[in-house]
């Protein structure tokens, strides 16, 4: 689980996150949604420790994630655009992360097989296609059976087979009791995977609850419609103020 | 050494009025010199003679056989003093001359004599080597002079001449003295084909010695190089000044020298090849300056000198001065730093060369700026000054710089 209180972050003069309070429970897939520039990626990066918040607290399974590396021990992350050191091979990367964590992954071989990465293991990253790199990212995120999984646009660039594999793995992770946070532009994907949603608009949390509640609140039949309604509402409120 | 076993073996052979006196092992040179009559020849056979304060009192010839050594053991004063004219000393080896700070002890000392010849002698570990005072028409030739004095004050000079005339110094090899060859008030001296190396102070040092000439000598790796002062009419030809490197080392220091002529001399790897102060009317031609720190440092009081057909190659500074005007003439020299062109292909660059770098002017005026040596900023500044001269003296100019070095001498 992830607990976030009063999280604020601004870059230069723009407030990206304003006083965000969120509780993300175990055993769930929570979608972070919102229009472009709503602060989704910054939100995720704050949890990861890549972005240092101006104020607020973040704890991952009870361990503070700000300024401490320990919280990330149970965390897996897959980034939006998979970029890795050019000269290292996937094998190097896996080995590096294993060494950094001082453990070996029992799952690595199985994951490599499922994503069919075998032929690319010894090629430098720069020689790999975007989709293949994305697979490497997925394996890195999942190889230690994380208790907390953060996925930023995970299926972008993945082929349909790998997308299916990834989705199955996400559901497995949840089934094992993990906390999963995901952002995606593919709303059907969110509808398929997520049981909870956090809606961010201009850095402010607009909604936080189950997908069912969201649908009920807006009175729409699909998540897509429901989100559109929510965006329009938020824009109107902003204009009014 | 057991004195009891000494035998006196002096053999006198009378031939045509002149006697040959032989000194052999066990005999003494002193007795031989004492016995010698005018015109006699003293033969000294191989062997070490532990003697000093020997005096040659009559016109005679002294011949040392190969291996004939007089060892003074640093006792007494001068080892051999010549008190007669027309003496020839040849082939002797003299070693361990006594060091004295009040007296100029020498291996061979000549005072107020005429026509003395000292040749093919060897001096090892002298205080002074060969010392001539108030003498005329003498020859010092093909001697090998060695000293190992570590300090300037505990060594004298290899060849020391004071107030003498018409002396030939030729083919000597002089190393390890205070000054290798020292002239003071010497006139009409000729210094030929000597090699003066590793002396503590100067390889050659002369003062007030007019009308002397120096040819085919080499002055190498001396503590302070060569210094010549207060002298008129010096002729120098084909001398080599090399590796005289140090804080105060000069290839040659010209101080108050007038009407000199320096031809075909070579200056290689000296910290300052020529340092000229109060040098006037000197013609320097056909000389080569290679890889020196400063090739030519001309102070403002140098007037009427001409530098022509010389080669300046690879020196850190070619010419420096502390003056903004020059009354000296440079022409037809080759400068490796010259970057002009020769459109009419006559071998002479079409634009004048200014050999004084801006930075060298700076160093003369603000000594602390020497710390910027090899700075990129300084190189940029120098290039800028070459393109648009503003500080460097316009009159320090070679209007006809050569595109190639003049043909080397035969």
């Amino acid at each position, binding site marked *: 689980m992830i607990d976030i209180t009063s999280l604020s972050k601004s*870059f230069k003069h723009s407030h990206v996150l304003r006083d965000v309070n969120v509780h993300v429970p175990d055993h769930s897939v929570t979608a972070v949604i919102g229009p472009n520039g709503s602060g989704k990626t910054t939100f995720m*990066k704050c949890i*990861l*420790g*890549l*972005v*240092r918040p101006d104020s607020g607290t973040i704890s991952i399974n009870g361990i503070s994630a700000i300024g401490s*590396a*320990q*919280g*990330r*021990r149970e*965390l897996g*992350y897959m*980034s939006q655009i998979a*970029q*890795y*050191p*050019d*000269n*290292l091979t996937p094998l*190097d*990367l896996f080995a*590096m*992360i294993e*060494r*950094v*964590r001082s453990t070996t992954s029992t799952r690595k071989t199985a994951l490599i097989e499922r994503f069919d990465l075998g032929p690319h293991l010894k090629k*430098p990253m720069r020689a790999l296609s975007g989709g293949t790199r994305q697979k490497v990212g997925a394996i*890195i995120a999942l190889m230690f059976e994380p208790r907390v999984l953060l996925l930023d646009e995970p299926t972008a660039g993945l082929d349909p087979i790998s997308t299916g594999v990834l989705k199955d793995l996400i559901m497995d992770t949840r089934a094992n009791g993990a906390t999963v946070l995901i952002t995606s532009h593919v709303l059907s994907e969110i509808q398929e995977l997520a049981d909870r949603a956090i809606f961010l608009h201009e850095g402010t949390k607009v909604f936080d609850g189950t997908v069912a509640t969201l649908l009920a609140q807006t009175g729409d039949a699909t998540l897509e419609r429901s989100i559109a309604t929510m965006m329009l509402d938020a824009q109107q409120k902003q204009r009014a103020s | 050494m057991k004195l009891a076993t000494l035998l006196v073996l002096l053999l006198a052979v009378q031939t045509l009025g002149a006697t040959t006196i032989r000194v052999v092992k066990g005999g003494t040179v002193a007795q031989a010199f004492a016995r010698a009559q005018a015109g006699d020849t003293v033969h000294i056979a191989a062997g070490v003679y532990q003697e000093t304060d020997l005096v040659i009192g009559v016109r005679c010839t002294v011949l040392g056989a190969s291996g004939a050594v007089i060892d003074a053991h640093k006792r007494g004063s001068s080892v051999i003093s010549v008190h007669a004219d027309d003496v020839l000393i040849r082939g002797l080896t003299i070693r361990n001359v006594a060091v004295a700070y009040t007296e100029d002890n020498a291996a061979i000392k000549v005072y107020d004599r005429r026509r003395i010849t000292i040749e093919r002698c060897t001096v090892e570990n002298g205080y002074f080597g060969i010392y001539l005072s108030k003498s005329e028409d003498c020859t010092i030739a093909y001697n090998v002079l060695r000293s190992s004095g570590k300090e300037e004050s505990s060594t004298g000079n290899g060849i020391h001449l004071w107030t003498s005339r018409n002396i030939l110094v030729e083919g000597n090899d002089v190393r390890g003295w205070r000054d290798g060859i020292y002239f003071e008030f010497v006139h009409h001296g000729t210094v030929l084909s000597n090699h003066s190396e590793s002396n503590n102070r100067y390889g050659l040092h002369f003062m007030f010695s007019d009308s002397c000439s120096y040819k085919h000598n080499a002055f190498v790796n001396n503590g302070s190089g060569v210094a010549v002062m207060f002298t008129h009419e010096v002729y120098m030809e084909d001398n080599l000044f090399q590796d005289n*490197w*140090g*804080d105060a*080392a000069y290839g040659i220091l010209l101080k108050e020298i007038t009407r000199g002529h320096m031809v075909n001399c070579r200056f290689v*790897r000296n*910290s300052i090849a020529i340092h000229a102060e109060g040098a006037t009317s000197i013609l320097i031609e056909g000389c080569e300056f*290679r*890889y020196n*720190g*400063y090739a030519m440092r001309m102070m403002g009081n140098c007037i009427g000198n001409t530098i022509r057909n010389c080669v300046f190659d*690879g020196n*850190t500074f070619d010419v420096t001065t502390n003056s903004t005007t020059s009354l000296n003439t440079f022409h037809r020299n080759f400068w490796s730093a010259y970057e002009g062109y020769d459109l009419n292909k006559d071998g002479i660059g079409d634009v004048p060369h200014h050999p004084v770098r801006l930075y060298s002017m*700076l160093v003369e*005026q*603000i*000594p*602390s*700026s*020497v*710390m*910027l*040596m*090899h*700075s*990129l*900023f*300084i190189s*940029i*500044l120098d290039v800028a000054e070459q393109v648009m001269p503003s500080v460097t003296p316009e009159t320090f100019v070679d209007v006809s710089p050569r595109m190639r070095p003049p043909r080397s001498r035969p």
Partner: protein
Amino acid sequence: MIGKLLGFALKDIARSKWVLLYVFFFILLTEGLLRFTAGEAKTVVGLMNIVLLLIPLGASMFGTLHLHNSREFIELILTQPVRRSSVFAALWLGVVIPFLAAFTLGVGIPMAAHGLIADPTIVALMVSGNVLTIVFFALSFLVGIVIADKAMSMGVAFVMWLFFAVLYDGLILWVSVQYADYPLEEATIAMVVLNPVDLARIVVTLTSDHAALMGYTGAVFNQFFGTMRGILISAGSLVLWTAVPLWFAKRAFDKRDW
């Protein structure tokens, strides 16, 4: 942890060919100078000019560039349970160590082959090159971390090099001309000690034959560098030029958003 990360940082840079290029450049340069310049003194001066110019420039530009090019590596590692300070240390050492080795081998191999490796001037030159590598990688890391924009930080790194390698000497000269009537030796020492490039240049020059051309000022400098106080002050300056930028760089790295 630093050791583990360093292993991968070194592996990454070892495959980038830049370092290999650097080794071969210095081997060719040194060998070329040894063969084609007349006299050892000329070789040393030529090598010194290039070392003093290229090492600060190379370290400034490459250090900054490397930080930007390592963005992926940094972001990947930072999502792992690793302290930022360890990542920073590994990154810095991961570039400094290969360049120190490359320079030392590049100059050292030809010098050793020519039997000059124990020559005091060569030793001074090699030590200076190593110190400059360390100092300028510290400075360039500061620039690379503080300025997030790649082009901008490369520009700043270049200006920084220009200042230390060129403009600073202009400043010394300007002060020397302005106060030409005063004894300037001590002021010059102070100014030189404050610039690592000048410090390296003077130390190498003073150990070389060219010390003889520096007259009284050179003697004053020699005396300064010959005392324990002078050595400590110079070493202190170099340590500060490494430690202060590194400390600020580490602080900025700790606070930086990726």
